[in-house]
């Protein structure tokens, strides 16, 4: 019904190996881009931006980053919160040290700094695997949070240890601070997300991604066929940390505006992003989006339905939220261990064959 593939011929290898080889998928992708770039910025308000869209966009970047490491390269990491903190603090130091430089450059540099830190903490992955690596990255998480709490230079010696994003702009449009218009913050994050998703998708389709996947599936075999594990693992850590750092910088500078490291980038954040990746689907870019949307939007939707529509007490709704989200996570993992991406994959195969399944 939806997929009419008859007549959709490919006459070159380039056509055949593009990201969305099916015409219908491709058009849908263009429509999503058109809506995201062309329609939403004109109708967005503060509530939609700050309560729903910004967290979704930013968590999606973090989930893509973690998915590269966990889903594509098979290196379990519990240090996401710590790496987001690196991005946030790097961005803060850059913003306050060079106020005249564009925010774009600050965010990208913050990502770069996080990539370096990520590689540093990725070094143990050459020796240890699986749960042991998870513990090593957990150490990174606690060390980084401790560091940002402990060394006053990172928070410019402020009395409370908080960092506050001053007002900064891109081409004269205010991006951070309270006076930033909703559409500008949204567009800023959207551009980063689009860029990250396209880069991630293409990296994972190419040689680099195939090397990561070879390492994930069996590292000894991969080494025998000529994949350099040092390079493969460290590039995965670098790219993943870059994305996570970008998301941390945006999380602090654009979304929250003021951050306290223990509260915003604690271990819960690492788990939250890991859940996004697992629920969305390991080794899938679409899965990162789906996972982020699921865990960001569902609590808000439940709250709106419970408190605003049904008028229940707020504490009951907050508890129900935990129960329902927890229950759904378990349900999903039992019914579809490969996540929302796999659900979509199966549905798509069915739709492609419909109405004549064989």
């Amino acid at each position, binding site marked *: 019904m939806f997929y009419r593939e008859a007549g959709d011929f490919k006459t070159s290898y380039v056509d055949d190996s593009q990201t969305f080889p099916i015409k219908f998928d491709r058009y849908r992708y263009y429509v999503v881009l058109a809506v995201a770039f062309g329609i939403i910025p004109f109708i967005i*308000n*503060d*509530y939609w931006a*700050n*309560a729903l869209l910004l*967290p979704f966009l930013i968590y999606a970047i973090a989930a893509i980053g973690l998915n590269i490491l966990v889903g594509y390269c098979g290196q379990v990491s519990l240090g996401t919160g710590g790496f987001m903190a690196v991005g946030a603090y790097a961005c803060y130091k850059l913003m*306050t040290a060079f106020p005249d430089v564009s925010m774009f450059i600050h965010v990208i540099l913050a990502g770069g700094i996080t990539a370096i830190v990520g590689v540093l903490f990725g070094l143990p992955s050459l020796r240890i695997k699986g749960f042991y690596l998870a513990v090593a990255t957990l150490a990174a998480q606690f060390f980084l949070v401790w560091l940002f*709490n402990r060394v006053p230079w990172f928070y410019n010696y*402020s*009395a*409370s*240890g*908080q960092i*506050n994003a*001053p*007002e900064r702009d891109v081409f004269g449009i205010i991006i951070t*601070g*309270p*006076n930033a218009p909703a559409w500008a913050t949204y567009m800023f994050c959207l551009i980063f997300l689009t860029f990250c998703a396209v880069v991630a998708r293409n990296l994972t389709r190419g040689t680099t991604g195939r090397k990561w996947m070879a390492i994930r599936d069996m590292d000894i075999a991969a080494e025998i066929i000529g994949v350099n594990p040092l390079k493969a693992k460290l590039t995965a850590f670098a790219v993943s940390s870059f994305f996570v750092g970008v998301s941390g910088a945006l999380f602090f500078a654009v*979304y*929250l*505006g*003021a*951050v*306290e490291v*223990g*509260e*915003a980038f*604690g271990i819960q954040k690492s788990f939250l992003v890991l859940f996004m990746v697992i629920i969305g689907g390991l080794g899938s870019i679409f899965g990162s989006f789906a996972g982020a949307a699921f865990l960001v939007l569902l609590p*808000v939707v439940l*709250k709106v339905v419970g*408190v605003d529509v049904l008028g229940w*007490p*707020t*504490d009951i*709704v*907050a*508890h129900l939220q935990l129960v329902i989200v927890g229950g759904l996570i378990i349900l999903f993992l039992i019914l579809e261990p490969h996540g929302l991406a796999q659900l979509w994959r199966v549905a798509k195969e069915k739709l492609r064959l419909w109405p004549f399944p064989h």
Partner: protein
Amino acid sequence: MKTKLATMALGALMAAGPAVADLVIPSLSYRTGPYAAGGIPFADGYADYFTLLNERDGGIGGVPVNLIECETGYNTEKGVECYESTKGEGALIYQPLSTGITYQLIPKVTADDIPLHTMGYGRTSARNGKVFSHVFNYPANYWDGASGAVNYLLEENGGDLNGKKIALVYHNSAYGKEPIRTLEELSKKHGFELTTLPVDHPGQEQKSQWLQIRREKPDFVLMWGWGVMNQVAIQEAANIRYPMENFIGVWWSGAQHDVLPAGDKANGYKAVTFHAVGDDFPVFDDIKTHVVDAGKAAGAGDQVGTVLYNRGLYSAMLAAEAIKDAQEANGTGDVTPGMVRDAMENLNITEERMAALGMPNFGPTFQVTCENHGGPGLIGVSQWDAGTQTWNLISDFKPTDGEVIGALVEEDSSAYAAENNVEPRCN
């Protein structure tokens, strides 16, 4: 038939009516998570006071109050979501009861022209109205609390703390770090030695901190704790047999639920405070008749008269009085957030005013000005009596070290002004 139609039409009118001109007051509460123990009584007191006004007086100045409760879980992300969702409803004033959320909201409320009242928490230097136009922290702030505690110790020790050791057990967050700078200045001034012991969120794990206290035997321990951290600290102090009368908490570490778990061992624990304790005030009779007995109490209705319930009540009262002033100044019942802000800047709480509200001597008398958003900062000390299970005021409300605090406020607020290009007001 005609009358029936008329009543129906009237009923429809009345049902549609109140939505137009309500006074919207958001309550960013937390009834879940590790800080719920403190969040619930505060939110109950806050809600009950507005329910009382609605039931007894028909609202403020005849306009009913619409209290919108939003659960933050003491989490800044949810706090932002709550702020954005209630802002659109026409919120008149925010009192988030979280230092972390306050830091988020300071720039936002200033841009949106909504007043923010952080009573006894938040950014201390917001007391400087020249820089922070929309933030108020009257009648007392953290640095008053720190100085008040030190002043009390000075008094107890004959005016000399030279060579004494004071340890600060604090929640390792913006909230807990606030007093450190003041205490450092005071330690220089009075010659006591200060040790700081951070406790990480949520605060159940304090064995090593109390081991250190046991080893170093500080003469006094101050605590900046919140939520589950308080009970654990008091229990740990009891376990190492630390003398409770030398253990002083800030006002967020001095409620019934903090000391009850330790039982008799908590006897003698002290906490500084800036408002009265107990339920011996006429306003509680009204709350009983109009709210509790009418079945309209918020939450489980079992918190009436506890320390934090009183604080919620007090903070709601200050908000209501500011709105009343705004209504009188502008001659309209339907005030805007901007009008409320102007009224808060001129708020004058006198003894007569508090007595008329059924809360005589409940808090200090004070006059807010454009320069001073922080009130007088009068600090008293209360002590827990485990036998009768009551908090008793043992030291009257006294002024704090204005010289030290004033200099620090000036320094911190001018740093904020420089960082954010704020033009000083009030000239």
